[in-house]
């Protein structure tokens, strides 16, 4: 043995495995870098799939099979059913609409407060709608004048059907601050 050979054999570790990058893993249950990464990828993929599935199912909950949506359009009787100068409460519970008749015609007001969505009460003695949640007040016309409500109550589309009945369509609303109350459908002349 030369000196060099002695040095070589002394530095050589007999138990040392070849680097994993060479792909010569000598034992099955030994974790190599490569197998570690493939397991890691599988793990992550499984995690993403499970999470994705979970959130897909969550999202699915937002689209129920059956939707109990109240009717948006309804017949509200004849114009003569409404007294001039009065706020009519008969459709409030069922459809969330106040029907108001004045000298010139009829309009339909939404019963949702424009501040945070409570239902105001019609105070007949004070001639105003008053919200019990934060004190917003509205005139009979729907214009806000008290409390924090930033804009007037919304009006719904109101038209006269062929049979002479009033039809209120809640899918179309008119906002005063956008200048929509001048629309012929926002106010029915009688």
């Amino acid at each position, binding site marked *: 043995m030369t000196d060099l050979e002695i040095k070589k054999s002394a530095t050589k570790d007999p138990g040392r495995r070849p680097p994993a990058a060479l792909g010569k893993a000598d034992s099955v249950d030994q974790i190599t870098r490569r197998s570690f990464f493939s397991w890691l990828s599988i793990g992550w993929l499984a995690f993403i799939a499970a999470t994705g599935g979970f959130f897909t199912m969550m999202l699915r909950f937002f689209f129920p099979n059956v939707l109990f949506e109240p009717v948006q359009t309804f017949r509200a009787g004849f114009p003569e059913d409404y007294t001039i100068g009065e706020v009519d409460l008969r459709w*409030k*519970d069922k459809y*969330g609409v106040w029907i108001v008749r004045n000298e010139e015609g009829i309009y339909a007001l939404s*019963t949702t407060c424009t*501040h*945070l969505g*409570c*239902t*105001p*009460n019609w*105070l007949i*003695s*004070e001639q105003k709608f*008053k*919200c*019990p*949640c*934060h*004190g917003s*007040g509205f005139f009979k016309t729907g214009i806000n*004048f*008290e*409390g*924090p409500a*930033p*804009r007037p109550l919304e009006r719904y589309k109101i038209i006269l059907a062929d049979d002479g009945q009033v039809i209120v369509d809640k899918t179309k609303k008119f906002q005063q*601050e*956008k200048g929509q109350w001048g629309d012929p459908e926002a106010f029915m002349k009688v």
Partner: protein
Amino acid sequence: MESFKHIIDTISNPTILFTSTLIIFFFIFPINDWFDKWNRRLKLYVLWSKKSMLLAAILMAAFFLFGLTDPDFRSIVLKPDNVPISGLIFLVYFFTWLSMHQAYENDARLERGESIDERYEAPNDKVLVWPDLVYIEFISLILCSAFLLVWSIGLQAPIEEPANPTESPNPAKAPWYFLGLQEMLVYFDPWMAGVVLPSLIIVGLIAIPYIDNEPAGSGYYSFKNRKLSIALFMFGWLVLWDMLIIVGTVLRGPNWNFFGPFEYWDIHKLEALTNINLSEFIYIKWMNTGLPNNILLREIWGIFLLLGYFLILPPLLARTMCKKIYERLGSFKYSIFIVLILIALTLPIKMYLRWMFNMKYIISIPEYFFNF
């Protein structure tokens, strides 16, 4: 007795109540040396003595007992929802007293050259987790559970009719711990009072240790070294949070009108509350021209006002009133600090504007859902 009730009802008027609170508050919790001087001169610090605590507790209890003889007061206080608030009044008072008592005690000890009361002295102060601490925790757990059981049996949650979206109860009150926020909603647009300001409260609380990292007086009860921090925090906590809860509970009645604690909740109470925006003040009341059609032109005054408030006031304050704070905090921390404080102050400012001038919004752009 009736005249006493009448006096209480009169000073419960929000303007009187808030103004007197604001005036008294910073003398009791002196925010700077000037207030501290007056605090000492008026001997207001005796409020934190044991005798004062006993006296105040007796007075508060006596007031409650007296109030219970009145049917209107009774119906508010004994409503199961409101019982926590009656408890809160006593508890908040007690713990405020306790901390201030200890703080003044420590200040006095340090002045005499003694060590602070909370100083850890090994081995005398050493307590074992087992059994000492665990034992105390166990006993507290049993007592709290027993208390909650008795409470929930004694004061039952009212079972009301099924929820009906078209029928809001009058008055419709939030849970007691949110009544401060609900009160805030009266003065702001919902997205401001419901989203922006509550988030800023949380952000501000998180920011406290980063803004105020002064070591003096830290780690034990003290008041002398931390006058500004304690006074400001107490203002936010006691006035802008707790007091608004109490106002929302006791003073707000049907149609969200103000009522005195001994006043009958009359649904038809008439209050002239017609309020108007700043733009209407300027264009209609002062200039007698109609509102301009251009939104920007209409709201320009409010925008200027708000920009001035948030952009001109901070540097101005840094040179005058808050000079010391500015020098201590540096410009970055100072900006955050002052903006948070100014935002918090918009609440009392807007309350006053509403009560005194019926001012609704300073900037009101309902066309784009922006109101401030």
